[in-house]
C-alpha cells in the first residue's frame, strides 16, 4: 500500500487560493465565572446560518453574541451553490455586493450517459429577474463575506472566536451556556439561544434531541482541484462515464480556478482507501482528460460524503431554537443544505426580533418551527428524489435509472427524470400565519399567501430607496427588515385611511413601508399589476422575510391592522379590533 503523503502519481497538493484570517480568543468581563452581561440572544456556530441569524437580528435592532469554536472561517469543500432566493435574503442583510463580486453565476447544465448528452436543463430565468438562479462560491467565501458584514455591525454582533459550547442548561426564561476557551472557561446567560452549530450540533446533543429520517448507503468522494480553464459555469453530470465506468461524476466550477468534482463510489469500495490520493487522483486525471482539460492541475482537498435525509420534529424547544444543519440534514444533491439554512435564518430573525421588542408573543416563534419544519420536509422530499437518482438506494432504482439514461438519448419524454431538481423557493402553504388572516380568494395570478414575491422590474417612478439611484429597481428591492404593503392605485393616490398606516405602525414600533404602484404610469408598472392580478385598489401585504402574508382586492386600514395584530398575536392589544 502506498503512503498517502507520497502518492503514486507524484502530484503535489496545492493550497486554496484563500488564506483565512485567524482570530484570537477573548474573555468577556466575568463575575464569579459568569459573563457579567446577560445577553438577549446567544447564537452558537458562526457558519453561514449563524451569521445570517446574527445579521438578520442586527438589522432589526437586536444585539446578539455569536459563539464560534474555531479561530477562522471554515476550510475545505462544503456548500458551493447559493440560490436566487438566498441571494435575495443576503441582499436584505446588506451583503449582496460581495457575493456578486466573488461568485460565478450560472443558469443550467448538461448530463451525459456514457459518451452521449442526455439532458440539457435550465433553471427558471427570464427578463423579469435581477439575480441569477444560482451562484457558485466556496463556503469559505460565503462565510468571509458574511463575516465582513457582521463586523460592520459590530456594535450589535459580539463575535467570540475559539469559544466552544460544552454544556447547556435550559430554563423557563432563558438558557445558561457553559463555554470553554484557551483563556479559560465561563458561563453565559441569554434570554434565547439559537443553535446553528451544524450537523454534529452540541446544542442538540445537550438537549438529548436526535434527528430522524433516512441515512443513505451511497457514498461520494468530494475533490477540489486547482486548474485554470475557460470552460463556462454550469452543472455537469456524467453517468457511467468512460473515465470512471459504473460511477456518477459531478463537476462544478468555483471562483479563482477551483473546480469541485464529486464522484460516486461503487458499493464494494472501501471508504478509507477511496479517499487516499493514489486512488483519487487517477480518477480525476482521467475525468479531466475525458472532458478535454489539458492544463496543469493540482488537488487541494479530498473528503467523503454520504447522503442523509434527517430532521428534528420541532425547531423550537422552549428558549432554544434550531436552524440549518443543526435542525435538518438534507442530501447534497439539489443544493438545499446551506440554502435551506439561510431561509431558516430569514424566517427566524424577524420573529425573534418582534418577540424581543415586545411586539409579539412568543407564539410567533412556534410558527418559525411550524413553517420551517414543513419546508424541511419538502426539501427532504425533493432531496430524497435527487439522491435516489444520483446514488440509487436499491437494485430497483439502479435498473430503472439505467432504463431512463439509455432511453433518454432517443426519447425526450423520459428526460425530466434526469433533471437534478435544484432548490426552488418554498411556499408556506397552510401556514397558521396565512390562515389567521383573511385574503381575497379570487386572484387569478400573483403569489398566493405563504409564497415568496415573484420578481418583477419596477417602473421608473416607483420609489425604491434601496436601488442605486432610488428608482427603476426590482420588486424584491422594496423589501427590507420591515413589513411591506404594496398598494396598486391608478392615478397614484393612496386612500386616506391607508395613508396613515406608515406613521401608525412605526408609532407602535413595527417596521413598516407602504409602497404605491400606479399601473397607469408606465409599461413596467402595468405589467407588474397584470402579473399580480392587481386591479385598481388591490393590496399585497408582505412579511419581512418576503413571503406574502395576505392580499386583498380592496382593503381598508382596519384589514391591515387586523392582519398584523393576528400575526403578531396581539389581539386584545392595540389595533386588535381595527
Amino acid at each position, binding site marked *: 500500500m502506498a503512503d498517502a503523503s507520497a502518492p503514486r502519481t507524484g502530484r503535489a497538493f496545492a493550497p486554496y487560493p484563500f488564506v483565512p484570517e485567524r482570530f484570537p480568543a477573548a474573555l468577556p468581563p466575568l463575575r464569579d465565572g459568569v459573563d457579567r452581561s446577560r445577553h438577549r440572544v446567544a447564537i452558537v456556530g458562526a457558519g453561514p446560518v449563524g451569521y445570517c441569524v446574527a445579521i438578520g437580528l442586527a438589522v432589526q435592532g437586536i444585539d446578539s453574541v455569536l459563539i464560534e469554536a474555531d479561530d477562522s472561517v471554515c476550510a475545505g469543500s462544503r456548500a458551493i451553490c447559493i440560490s436566487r432566493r438566498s441571494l435575495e435574503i443576503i441582499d436584505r442583510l446588506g451583503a449582496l455586493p460581495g457575493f456578486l463580486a466573488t461568485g460565478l453565476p450560472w443558469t443550467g447544465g448538461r448530463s451525459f450517459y456514457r459518451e452521449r448528452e442526455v439532458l440539457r436543463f435550465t433553471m427558471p430565468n427570464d427578463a423579469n429577474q435581477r439575480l441569477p438562479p444560482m451562484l457558485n462560491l466556496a463556503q469559505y467565501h460565503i462565510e468571509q463575506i458574511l463575516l465582513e458584514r457582521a463586523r460592520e455591525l459590530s456594535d450589535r454582533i459580539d463575535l467570540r472566536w475559539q469559544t466552544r459550547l460544552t454544556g447547556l442548561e435550559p430554563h423557563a426564561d432563558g438558557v445558561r451556556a457553559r463555554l470553554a476557551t484557551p483563556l479559560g472557561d465561563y458561563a453565559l446567560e441569554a434570554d434565547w439561544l439559537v443553535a446553528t452549530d451544524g450537523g454534529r450540533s452540541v446544542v442538540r446533543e445537550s438537549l438529548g434531541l436526535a434527528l430522524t429520517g433516512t441515512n443513505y448507503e451511497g457514498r461520494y468522494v468530494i475533490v477540489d482541484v486547482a486548474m485554470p480553464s475557460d470552460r463556462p459555469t454550469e452543472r455537469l453530470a456524467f453517468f457511467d462515464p468512460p473515465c470512471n465506468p459504473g460511477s456518477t461524476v459531478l463537476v462544478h466550477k468555483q471562483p479563482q480556478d477551483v473546480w469541485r468534482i464529486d464522484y460516486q463510489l461503487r458499493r464494494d469500495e472501501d471508504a478509507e482507501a477511496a479517499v487516499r490520493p493514489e486512488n483519487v487522483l487517477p480518477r480525476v486525471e482521467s475525468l479531466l482528460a475525458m472532458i478535454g482539460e489539458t492544463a496543469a492541475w493540482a488537488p487541494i482537498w479530498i473528503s467523503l460524503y454520504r447522503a442523509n435525509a434527517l430532521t428534528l420534529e420541532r425547531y423550537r424547544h422552549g428558549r432554544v431554537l434550531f436552524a440549518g444543519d443543526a435542525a435538518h440534514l438534507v442530501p447534497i444533491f439539489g443544493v438545499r443544505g446551506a440554502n435551506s439554512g439561510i431561509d431558516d435564518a430569514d424566517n427566524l430573525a424577524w420573529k425573534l426580533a418582534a418577540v424581543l421588542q415586545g411586539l409579539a408573543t412568543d407564539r410567533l416563534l412556534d410558527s418559525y418551527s411550524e413553517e420551517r419544519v414543513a419546508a424541511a420536509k419538502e426539501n427532504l422530499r425533493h432531496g430524497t428524489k435527487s439522491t*435516489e437518482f444520483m446514488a440509487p438506494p*436499491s437494485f430497483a432504482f439502479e*435498473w430503472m435509472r439505467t432504463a431512463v*439514461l*439509455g*432511453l433518454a438519448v*432517443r426519447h425526450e419524454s*423520459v428526460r425530466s*427524470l434526469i433533471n437534478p431538481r435544484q432548490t426552488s423557493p418554498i411556499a408556506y402553504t397552510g401556514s397558521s400565519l396565512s390562515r389567521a388572516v383573511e385574503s381575497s380568494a379570487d386572484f387569478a395570478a400573483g403569489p398566493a399567501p405563504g409564497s415568496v414575491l415573484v420578481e418583477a422590474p419596477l417602473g421608473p417612478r416607483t420609489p425604491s430607496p434601496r436601488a442605486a439611484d432610488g428608482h427603476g429597481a426590482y420588486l424584491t428591492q422594496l423589501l427590507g427588515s420591515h413589513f411591506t404593503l404594496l398598494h396598486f392605485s391608478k392615478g397614484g393616490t393612496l386612500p386616506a385611511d391607508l395613508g396613515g398606516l406608515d406613521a401608525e405602525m412605526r408609532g407602535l414600533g413595527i417596521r413598516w413601508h407602504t409602497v404605491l404602484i400606479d399601473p397607469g404610469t408606465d409599461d413596467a408598472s402595468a405589467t407588474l399589476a397584470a402579473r399580480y392580478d392587481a386591479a385598481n385598489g388591490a393590496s399585497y401585504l408582505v412579511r419581512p422575510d418576503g413571503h406574502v402574508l395576505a392580499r386583498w382586492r380592496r382593503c381598508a386600514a382596519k384589514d391591515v391592522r387586523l392582519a398584523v395584530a393576528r400575526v403578531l398575536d396581539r389581539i386584545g392589544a392595540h389595533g386588535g379590533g381595527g
Partner: protein
Amino acid sequence: MNAEDLDTVYTDLCRAMTAVGEAQAPILLARFALLAIVEIADAGRLRRLIAAAAEDLAEATGKRES
C-alpha cells in the same frame, strides 16, 4: 402526464420492485408490462414500444471493462 406525476409513478415502481426483491422484480415488471399492454390496447403502438425498448439495449446497458 406532467413531469411530477411521471416522477412519482417512477418512484412508486422502484419501491414496488425493491419491496419484492431482486429475484422477483423481473416477474413484477412482466406483470406490470402485461397490465400496461391491455390498458394501452393499441397493437401498433405497443409493437413500436416493444421495439423501442429493445433498440440499442446491448449498447445502452452492456457491461464494459472498468
